[in-house]
């Protein structure tokens, strides 16, 4: 055995002993030690394992890393990888090339519960940086002193000393790091971003804290920086450059002013000039600012202002401490006031805008001036209060230091100078403060212009605006007063039933006298008589007598009206309000009518609705009547509407923004196809696409479909009623009804799916692909034409359409027949027999007619398809529509 081998063997034995001692805890003298030694020795020397494969170990290691990453521990994975890479770089005994992999292999084999162990474990990332963290060193263990380093015993003491030195050095390094961190923190605290908050906090919370701040040594820099607040002429730029970065934020007063004005008013810097110690604006150039940005900019403005104010303070505090405190107080109040004013104004204008939008939706008409004005009056009152506050504050400013305009705060100086320089007379500084605010809020003013029909701009006639608004408020005040009087007097009267009846009668009578007059006289009665009961229907003459009487007696209502002429004014207004503008009064009246429909003749109710131009309610009412299927009622309503329409009442204003239904002609059903037309006013450029001609086509198509749908609905209802009547019995009526249903259903499919759906999809495709507006128009026209042709609504297909109408007429007549069938039980026997015979004969006629018409229709379709081969949907329709063929 060679020396090397002997050494190796010796080393192995030593290691093995240590291994057993440290792993088992058995001493060399123990029997278990021998057993363990034998076991370990034999297994380690005479094993059958192959040499470790570095690639396999590496692969397994990568798997471990992936596993850690999957278990959301990427940092651990990275750390482990870093450690291994570091291990590879280390100088290990190079008897084997893959020593790091061998060690890693061992660790991997000994690892267990990797994920659970690492879920709560945080990696120690400083391990690679630090040199010696543990107190324990390998050499401290007596038995391991000479492990690995092979140092002689003579050098052990020196090594220990050196270790102590190393530790001391490390401690020094750590202290240095701590000091550096502390310095960094200090610089952070005094950085640019912190400055405004620091100052704001310290100055506005308590004056004591500000004084402390001023007197502290750290603030010496800030105090010195106040010297920077000098005009350009004094050339302190060199000092500026020497100062630390935190102070360079505010290097130039002009920059401050420019920044402040830009943030507040949107004024450009090139409009601002500085000469002879004063700032001047060449022109107002306002940028659009939303109220959010305005609020935020005012906050910035205030912050800047405080910086300006307080950085200047220390100098002045030394000179005139008492005066400065007062000034600070005033400034604080002013700026806080500005803030609150702006927020109030913002709220008022927002409310105003909301109300205006609400009006637009509520009235469903053009924005009505009177209602807008009424809402505006409340908001404008707030606005005038705000303007008054501004004036008060402006007065305060002007009283500081004897109106000389020499403020310690440059921002206040700017404002004051602006007021003076840009106004013709010094007393108009208040106006100009207003102007500043109004300029900043120009978008709101423009909206007000729109609603007030005020066509001039601010620059043109700014001075007129407050006057105009003031005059508005006076005007509104009068109407408001009148309205309040009416509410006090008129409404209580209206609540009385007798009054309401008479009122309604007068309202509903569309007689020789004009509707406005009848309303007027009725209301005169309401107001002047003070709500007395009136049992008899009154006439104009009678009312006049009463009018005289009540005027002489000075009735209750007159007491509240100081100016007798005002009665006429407010009566006119009331008429307007009732007719168009005040929905509340309308609703009260209509509510009453609705609740007492049984006492009121239907036609009178309709007239009332018609008079109020409440076409929506008219429509509802007509639908209700139609649902009741009372032909008599429908006829009555038809006559009423005919009568109303023939009198050419002006409906124009009601239909500007929405399509409305206008009943124009008589027909069997009130909402029959020929009676209904859509009338729609579209904004440009959609009106180029949907023009008048296309509207005619739309109406044609719509009328036909409406007619068809109506028939289907009635048929379905009749079938339901019939099934109730003949529950389980076979009935020829039911069978015939099924036939009709079959036709209707399949024809409906033909119309809605085969034609309309298909054509609409094609049209939309073309629209998406179209390259020009003209193309869209052409495609739209083609779309409508195709639909109308396929539905046989063109002139060439009149015969087919007639045939279809004949069939659908049968479908419409069938429910009426069924109604008679179902009501047979209600009559006596004799009448029942007669009625049954009549029904039978009518039914057979109907059935024969239907069969004939269907076969005729199918023939016509066949003929059509032979002529026009590009109509596959009609072929399908023919197949489906023929009941007997379909179920053959």
């Amino acid at each position: 055995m060679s020396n090397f081998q002997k050494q190796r063997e010796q080393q192995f034995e030593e290691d093995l002993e240590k291994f057993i001692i440290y792993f088992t805890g058995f001493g060399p003298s123990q029997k278990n030690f021998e057993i363990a030694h034998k076991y370990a020795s034999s297994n380690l020397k005479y094993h059958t394992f192959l040499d470790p494969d570095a690639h396999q170990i590496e692969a397994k290691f990568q798997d471990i890393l992936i596993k850690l990453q999957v278990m959301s521990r990427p940092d651990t994975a990275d750390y482990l990888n870093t450690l291994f890479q570091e291990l590879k770089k280390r100088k290990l005994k190079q008897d084997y090339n893959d020593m790091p992999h061998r060690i890693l292999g061992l660790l991997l084999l000994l690892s267990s519960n990797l994920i659970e162990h690492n879920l709560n474990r945080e990696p120690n990332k400083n391990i690679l940086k630090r040199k010696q963290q543990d107190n324990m060193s390998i050499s401290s263990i007596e038995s391991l002193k000479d492990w690995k380093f092979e140092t002689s015993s003579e050098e052990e003491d020196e090594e220990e000393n050196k270790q102590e030195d190393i530790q001391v050095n490390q401690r020094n390094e750590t202290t240095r790091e701590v000091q550096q961190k502390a310095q960094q923190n200090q610089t952070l605290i005094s950085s640019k971003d912190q400055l405004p908050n620091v100052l704001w906090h310290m100055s506005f919370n308590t004056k004591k804290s500000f004084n402390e701040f001023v007197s502290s040594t750290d603030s010496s820099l800030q105090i010195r920086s106040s010297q920077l607040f000098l005009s350009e002429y004094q050339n302190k730029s060199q000092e500026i450059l020497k100062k630390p970065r935190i102070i360079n934020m505010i290097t130039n007063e002009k920059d401050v002013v420019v920044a402040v004005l830009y943030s507040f008013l949107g004024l450009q810097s090139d409009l601002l000039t500085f000469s002879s110690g004063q700032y001047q604006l060449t022109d107002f150039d306002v940028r659009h600012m939303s109220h959010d940005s305005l609020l935020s900019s005012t906050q910035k403005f205030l912050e800047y202002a405080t910086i300006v104010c307080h950085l200047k303070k220390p100098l002045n505090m030394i000179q005139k401490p008492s005066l400065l405190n007062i000034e600070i107080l005033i400034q604080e109040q002013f700026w806080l006031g500005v803030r609150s004013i702006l927020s109030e104004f913002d709220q008022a204008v927002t409310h105003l805008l909301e109300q205006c939008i609400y009006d637009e939706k509520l009235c469903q008409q053009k924005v009505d001036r009177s209602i807008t004005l009424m809402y505006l009056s409340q908001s404008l009152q707030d606005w005038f209060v705000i303007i008054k506050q501004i004036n008060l504050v402006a007065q305060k400013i002007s009283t500081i230091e004897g109106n000389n305009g020499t403020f310690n705060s440059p921002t206040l100086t700017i404002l004051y100078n602006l007021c003076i320089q840009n106004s013709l007379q010094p007393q108009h500084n208040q106006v100009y403060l207003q102007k500043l605010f109004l300029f900043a809020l120009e978008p709101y003013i423009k909206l007000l212009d729109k609603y007030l029909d005020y066509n001039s701009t601010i620059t043109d006639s700014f001075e007129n605006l407050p006057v105009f608004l003031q005059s508005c408020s006076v005007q509104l005040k009068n109407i408001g007063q009148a309205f309040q009087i009416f509410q006090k007097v008129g409404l209580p009267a209206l609540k009385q039933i007798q009054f309401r009846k008479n009122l309604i009668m007068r309202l509903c009578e569309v007689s020789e006298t004009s509707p406005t007059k009848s309303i007027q006289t009725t209301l005169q009665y309401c107001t002047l008589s003070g709500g007395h009961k009136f049992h008899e229907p009154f006439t104009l003459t009678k009312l006049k007598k009463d009018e005289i009487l009540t005027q002489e007696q000075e009735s209750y209502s007159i007491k509240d009206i100081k100016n007798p002429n005002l009665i006429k004014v407010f009566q006119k207004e009331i008429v307007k309000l009732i007719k168009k503008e005040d929905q509340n009064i309308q609703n009260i009246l209509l509510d009453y009518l609705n609740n007492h429909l049984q006492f009121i003749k239907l036609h009178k109710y309709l007239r009332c609705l018609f008079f109020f131009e409440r076409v929506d309610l008219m429509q509802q009412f007509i639908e209700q009547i139609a649902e009741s299927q009372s032909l008599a009622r429908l006829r009555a309503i038809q006559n009423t509407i005919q009568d109303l329409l023939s009198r050419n009442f002006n409906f124009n204003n009601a239909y500007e923004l929405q399509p409305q239904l206008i009943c124009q002609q008589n027909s069997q059903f009130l909402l029959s196809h020929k009676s209904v037309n859509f009338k729609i006013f579209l904004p440009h450029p959609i009106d180029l696409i949907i023009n008048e001609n296309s509207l005619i086509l739309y109406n044609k198509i719509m009328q036909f479909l409406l007619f068809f749908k109506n028939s289907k609905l009635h048929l379905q209802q009749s079938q339901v009623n019939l099934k109730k009547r003949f529950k389980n019995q076979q009935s020829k009526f039911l069978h015939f009804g099924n036939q009709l249903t079959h036709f209707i259903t399949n024809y409906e499919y033909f119309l809605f799916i085969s034609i309309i759906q298909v054509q609409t999809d094609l049209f939309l495709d073309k629209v998406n692909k179209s390259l020009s507006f003209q193309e869209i128009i052409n495609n739209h026209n083609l779309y409508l034409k195709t639909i109308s042709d396929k539905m046989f609504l063109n002139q060439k297909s009149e015969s087919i359409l007639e045939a279809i109408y004949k069939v659908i007429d049968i479908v419409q007549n069938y429910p009426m027949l069924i109604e008679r069938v179902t009501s047979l039980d209600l009559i006596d026997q004799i009448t029942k027999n007669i009625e049954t015979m009549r029904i039978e004969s009518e039914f057979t006629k109907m059935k024969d007619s239907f069969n004939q018409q269907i076969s005729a229709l199918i023939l016509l379709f066949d003929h059509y398809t032979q002529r026009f081969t590009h109509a596959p949907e009609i072929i399908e329709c023919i197949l489906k529509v023929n009941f007997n063929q379909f179920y053959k």
Partner: protein
Amino acid sequence: MQTNMNGSNMKSQLRVSSLSEKEEAQETLEIIHEMSQILNCGLDRQQLAILVSMIENGVNPEALALVVNEMKTELNTYKKIHKQ
């Protein structure tokens, strides 16, 4: 004199080099220990130093791992019996 000087210089150089090697070795052990902690091997620094030394002396890691695991299990059993 010169040889003594040279010898002392050599010694000091050796000391320096041995010191640096020692530091490096301890760092390496620290790294290995950290890896073992992450991999949850359940070994302290002493045990780890022994195992690393054994591997450096040519012991097969797989065999060593087997022995370590067997020792641990047997020891646990031994401890359980003695507790009872």
